[in-house]
């Protein structure tokens, strides 16, 4: 069994909602291994309710079948929980080219989650013109992982991957 090929195939499967990113770029592909029963791919969900997980699972199985791997299992691993910090540098560049602002670094804390009573003042640059003069339109967007913003310099709305 050609494990290197299986890794390459799994790593090139595209995210169903952000089809410029591979599952590897997005940081949801945890591992590709082989055991006595075939190829075992491990993925982690972005959000608990992300409906794209089932499609990712099917796409992985289909791609690996097409590449000649008959026996493929996809397992889910929850820990450590996915963070937007897992999106690769390459993935961030592709997101900007696609018109989506990548997430900034995630604030780390331990113990009780601090209450923030004002909208976070994130510095998010417009993926179109690069201006940092942008504002949040909606904290929730078309998918669980995105918020909606607008650029005050070029007036274009754009999506932003939320820090998680």
């Amino acid at each position: 069994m050609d494990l290197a090929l299986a890794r390459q195939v799994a790593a090139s499967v595209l995210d169903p909602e952000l089809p410029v990113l591979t599952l590897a770029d997005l940081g949801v592909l945890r591992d590709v291994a082989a055991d006595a029963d075939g190829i075992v791919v491990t993925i982690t969900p972005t959000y608990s309710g992300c409906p794209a997980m089932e499609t990712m699972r099917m796409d992985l199985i289909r791609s690996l079948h097409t590449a000649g791997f008959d026996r493929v299992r996809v397992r889910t691993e929850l820990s450590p929980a996915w963070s937007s910090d897992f999106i690769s540098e390459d993935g961030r560049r592709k997101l900007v080219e696609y018109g989506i602002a990548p997430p900034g670094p995630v604030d780390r804390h331990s113990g009780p989650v601090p209450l923030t009573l004002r909208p976070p003042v994130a510095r998010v640059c417009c993926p179109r013109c690069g201006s940092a003069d942008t504002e949040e339109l909606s904290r929730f967007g078309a998918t669980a992982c995105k918020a909606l913003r607008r650029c005050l310099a070029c007036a274009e709305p754009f999506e932003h991957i939320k820090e998680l």
Partner: protein
Amino acid sequence: MSFDNAYESLVEDNDETHWAYGTGFVDILSDVDHAVPDGVDAPKLAAYCLLLGDDALVMAQRLSAWCSWAPELEEDVALANIALDLLGQARLLYTRAAEADPSIRPTAAPAHVPAEDALAYFRDELDFRNVRLAEIDTGPGPAGDFAMTIARLLVFASWRLAIFARLTDTADPVLSAIAAKGIKELAYHRDHAAQWTIRLGDGTALSAERMRAGFAAIWPLVPELCAPHPSDLLDPAPVAAELDDVLDRVFAAARLRRPEVPAMAGVSGRTGRDGVHTTALGYLLAELQHIARSHPQAVW
């Protein structure tokens, strides 16, 4: 090979048949070694995962009713997204509950229905263990309004976040992982509700009055959240203290007073965690379950 959208893959030749109402035949936690660790009381763990799952499922059903009825389009999307996060938590918790104690699977569910769907669709009202706060009708519709919905969401998300933050190092690694994942989602829900509470509470005379009335309407069900119960895996006292602190800070910023409304009594002291619910839950479950129960063998 990949597909441009999820629908395309449905018409592709494949031998995967899906149960029509739930999640297909793949368990969400499929194919992982999920043995319950030594020293963990498996039936107690299952019961606890089940009640946390019930809170999330029932709350998700209520929130998703707002989609297309919220005051603005962005809020349709927001409440639907929050509902989706909670539905995802319910799926993980139900799956874990059935792994820990397979005997909780309702016998009414056909064999091909995954455990998570069996628990969601084939249990009766008396078997649900959600707190009553999650089930009451806060609108859309004449029973409530957006302010009451936000009031309930603020309390629910703050309370659940305080619980999940304390579950990240339980003896069961799967429950801990579910909690660690949920914390990030719940913190976002709580902040969203807090910002609306401040905007409305510290807004116009009308918005402030609606926000005040919203909290007053849901407040009788708040004491139940942290009342000690035999099913607890956690000491409820620190959860209650954190909830109080968070709510007081939001109330102060929103220029609202903490309501002074007596608690809604249970029936002989029994409440949602004992399967004793308000009339609202039966109607909610009828809507949630009746198609699946009417056509349990349907597949696509």
